[in-house]
């Protein structure tokens, strides 16, 4: 199977004047296309930092990162934005929707930055909302929706540009267990359709949906990294 993500000796160091914080201490990891990987570990162990680097939102201090076989380390900010836009879908713990815009407008957002025309944007966004079962809420704004519904809007947004990988950072962390299960069922379904998923969580039950579980502690990979 083809390797979509390859991390080699990834380090993230925050230099705060006197104290140097080494958040990631050399991570080697690869993710295959179509794989469903969960990253687990205690709070503060560097999971989000790692996921942000995988998602091209952040840059490693040291190490090599190959996405689709291409070295990402020396790409410009605009090139990284382009990768985030077309190849990566993000789902956050706190949803990160724009509160002033309707659900469908939120879902359209990535398409706005890839130059898709207005009517086409809307059609694609509505289709995605249908996939997550929210067609009836298309014109509602996030504050009018439950947490579970907001997270489904966020998933629709992550999917709308047909990305190579979905990255989810504790997507059930802010949800009650029932909504959490609903969300995980969606991920399961997406995985069955062939979507690559990397998901951060500290709940065993959530990690149970994944094919492989990676464990990180104090910035070091303890288990599942290969």
């Amino acid at each position, binding site marked *: 199977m083809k390797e979509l993500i390859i991390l080699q000796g990834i380090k993230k160091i925050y230099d705060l004047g006197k104290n140097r914080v080494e958040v990631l201490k050399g991570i080697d990891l690869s993710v295959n296309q179509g794989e469903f990987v969960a990253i687990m570990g205690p709070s503060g162990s560097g999971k989000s930092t790692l996921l942000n680097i995988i998602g091209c*939102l952040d840059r490693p201090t040291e190490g090599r990162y190959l996405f689709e076989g291409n070295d990402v380390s020396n790409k410009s900010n605009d090139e990284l934005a382009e990768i985030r836009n077309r190849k990566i879908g993000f789902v956050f713990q706190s949803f990160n929707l724009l509160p002033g815009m309707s659900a469908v407008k939120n879902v359209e957002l990535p398409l706005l*930055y890839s130059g898709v025309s207005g009517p086409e944007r809307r059609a694609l966004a509505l289709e995605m909302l249908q996939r997550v079962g929210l067609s009836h809420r298309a014109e509602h704004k996030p504050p009018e929706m439950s947490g579970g519904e907001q997270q489904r809007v966020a998933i629709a947004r992550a999917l709308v540009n047909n990305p190579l990988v979905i990255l989810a950072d504790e997507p059930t962390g802010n949800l009650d267990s029932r909504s959490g299960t609903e969300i995980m069922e969606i991920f399961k379904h997406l995985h069955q359709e062939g979507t690559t998923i990397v998901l951060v969580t500290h709940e065993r039950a959530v990690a149970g949906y994944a094919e492989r579980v990676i464990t990180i502690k104090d910035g070091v990979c303890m288990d599942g990294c290969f």
Partner: protein
Amino acid sequence: MDVFEILKVSFDSLKANKLRSFLTMLGVIIGVAAVILLVSIGEGARRYIRTELGGLGTNILIVVPGKTAKEGGTHMGTSSVRKLVYDDAVLIKKRSVHVQYAVPVIVGTSWVKYRNKNRDTYIVGVTEDYFPARNLSIESGRALGSNDVETKRRVCILGRTVKRDLFGDVNPLGATIKIGDERYRVIGIMQKKGVTLGYDLDDVVFIPTPVAMDLFDTDALFNITVKARGEQSIDAAKRDIRKLLIHRHAGREDFTILSQDEMLDVMGKVLNIMTAVLAGIAAISLIVGGIGIMNIMLVSVRERTKEIGIRKAVGAKNRDILFQFLVESTVVSVTGGAGGILLGVSVGMAIPLFVKFLPTSIAWWSVVLAFFFSALVGIFFGVYPARKAALYDPIVALRHE
């Protein structure tokens, strides 16, 4: 990038903070309105003076005592200035073939009485040539004749305001009024000329110059109003007058000959400076408005840090964010500019309706200029906040609450 979508986002974000957006725009509204208004007052003054001086009649030269008239301080009569007298005017006409008329003019004020009504008004002493020289029309009765002047007849021609105040609807022709201590017969009524810059041009009584000299007990003329025979004769007439008067004034040029063009020229220069200064002051208020925009945009960028983070996370490039905030500040300033035009033009047009002595004339170049300047202000003062927004690190922006 979808420009319509960005415009929509801008308008939405402005609508979300209506009062704040309005207050921000107010700076630009006032700035643009001020530019348009102040320029319209300058233009109004220019137009007023042009028609006023144009109303002198064509090919007119005005000879006034003193050498500083062009600089504004007319015949304030320093000891070395010799007065202009009746014979100066007579000789100018007699000696120069280029001169059609030369009218000795005396101006003063006096009480005029008719029965129990009276009024303090301007008394202007002229000769029969004054009316054709200045293109003045008589509404009823007749103008002064040479006989009236030569034989020092106490006759007068009334301006409309004086006629209305003293006579009301009664026909004044042939009636006798009192100017000072003497009686004068009314022989004519002037055509209405109107009010400009608060000065009533119909509040005047014309009498023969020799009579006015007796009335005010002076032989010093206010001016000599000369009409050249044609446009080509103006320069020659001026030369003749100069030579003659220098000769009569013992070799000293202690008088000034003003032509209509020169007066227009001098006034035009003064008005250009005045208009430029007014526009400049107004432009400063526009810049202050721009600083207001920058201030609010900085607040807005800060408040929307999270939004910027989200947009970047889903693929917005730095220039997309830059453009969004630049459009927003430009929308504020252009909307404010449109409001300012509305305010400036309507107030500019309303002023003459309420303030009679202040003629205004909307200069359309100032409207266009103010509008573009306001758009420019929005872009200029929007760049810094927009750049700040564009350069946010996506991770830092996303973590912002």
